[in-house]
């Protein structure tokens, strides 16, 4: 028996998404069982199966340091604050000119 990871996608919509996993004796049985276990209510119309042993899993220690770098999160707040500040300064300059 092998563990298979199941991915589903709705045609024309979204990307493949992980749906779950199952045990199966071979690829063909994995297809048959995945269809009924994960797609019987039409949750997707495309199906990928990946044997878990073929998934390359990175070490958590290797990935973790990137969680602590807020400067790489481009949520736009810093840029927006800067634009606002420049806009306000320009308004002040306009006001003093018109006086």
């Amino acid at each position, binding site marked *: 028996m092998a563990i298979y990871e199941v991915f589903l996608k709705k045609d024309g919509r979204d990307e493949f998404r992980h749906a779950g996993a*199952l*045990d*199966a*004796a*071979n690829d*063909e*049985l994995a*297809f*048959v*069982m995945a*269809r*009924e*276990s994960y797609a*019987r209510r039409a949750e997707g119309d495309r199906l990928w199966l990946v044997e878990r042993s073929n998934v390359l899993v990175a070490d958590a220690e290797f990935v973790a340091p990137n969680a602590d770098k807020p400067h790489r999160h481009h949520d736009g707040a810093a840029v927006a604050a800067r634009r606002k500040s420049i806009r306000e300064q320009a308004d002040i300059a306009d006001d003093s000119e018109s006086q």
Partner: protein
Amino acid sequence: MNPIEEFIFSFADDEHLIGQQHTEWIGVAPFLEEDLAFSSIGQDELGHAVLLYEVVLGLRETEATDEAIDALAYDRGASEYRSSHLVELATTDWAQALLRHWLYDTVEQFRWELVVGSSNTALAEIAIRVEREERFHRRHADALLDSLLASPVARPVLLAAFDSLTPFIANLLAPVAGETEAIAQGVVSASITTIAPLLEQRVADRFEQTLSITADISNSPGRDVRSDHFQTLMDRMREVIDYDPQAVW
């Protein structure tokens, strides 16, 4: 009984009872995924039974309400059912259930092919519609059998289970009451007995066994006689209804 109705009942009742039998494996099949797959296949067969009961209601020019379909499925007298003894058989043996699934669905494929050009247009449309599901049913049975027959442990168990079912094949393929009229009216293209050589070939390919069905068919009891298993199955199916037959659902 109207002969065309009787012919349709022979198919509808088979679909109904095999569907019931398969769905009863929910929770007790050998593994979780098979629980889902097998009972889901059973639901498909129940759906096909509904479509076929609707054909009967169409012949009667009666509206196919849920109540009318339920009445055909659950309320007829035992002597009015035209199911084969194979689908009435009670089993708690998974190997037997799996082999029955393969055997029934192999025959079912050929039965739909006999009505795909039916003069009854509703029936012809159903034959095309169900094939998408039936293709999967056969793939499911074949995937399990391909895997298990290769195992020296499972192979003898499966072959014994198959042997236990071969006595039911003649009854399954014996001429169905009403089929002479059904053939004359173009409802079905040929007798169900014509499936025998096709099944023999499938059995030879799958189990490397020689099966001779044709000789047994003429000696088989027909579908107008219920097997001993029928009433227990029907009582179980009607259990909730029988608590209070007047209840409104």
